[in-house]
């Protein structure tokens, strides 16, 4: 299935855009998606950390990704 991924902050710069579309296997999890992203954009591995959000909530590694979900790459936040 194809997943739409939002990228913010330094992740947006690393991924070369604020919206990506990635073909992922059905029944993927946030953990496997994170691994795929790191392989495709190795500079993500150089960050302090990054999390994935699914439908505007931080996602645990075993969270299932479903078609139509809004996934976002959340590099270390620094608001305030």
């Amino acid at each position: 299935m194809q997943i739409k991924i939002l990228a913010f902050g330094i992740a947006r710069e690393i991924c070369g855009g604020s919206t990506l579309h990635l073909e992922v296997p059905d029944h993927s999890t946030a953990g496997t998606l994170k691994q795929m992203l790191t392989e495709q954009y190795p500079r993500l591995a150089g960050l302090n950390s990054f999390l994935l959000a699914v439908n505007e909530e931080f996602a645990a590694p075993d969270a299932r990704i479903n078609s139509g979900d809004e996934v976002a790459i959340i590099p270390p936040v620094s608001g305030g």
Partner: protein
Amino acid sequence: MAQRQTSHFNITTAPIDVMACIGLVTGPGSGGVDVFIGTVRDLTQGKPVLRLEFEAYESMALREMQRIVEQAFAKWPVHAIAIHHRTGVLQVGDTAVVIAVSAAHRAAAFDACRYTIDTLKQTVPIWKKEVFEDGEVWVSAHP
């Protein structure tokens, strides 16, 4: 506490009106308001900052703000909390964030305000890039 707890959130590229934030939380039942104002500093580790650029995952940031406020309401007897965060390009001296918390008694207002800004900085998806003369840095991005 019979009083209803109210919250107000705003993420905006416009300058933040501090008095408006305070006005959102004050009422006749409040004895104290604690307000935190975060502004853009001129130096980072001694290096002059030209400007800051803030970016937000706005819909999720508003949800996370709501979550923080619910936690604060559960922990302390506060009446109202307002969180306004600015995004876009900010100059030195500009206000990036205002958190205003009202309560009948000041201890709760102080505790909840501090909890709110501390947690916001840890969980709310907002990012800032510091722009220096010789380059730019996404804050906290790298070890």
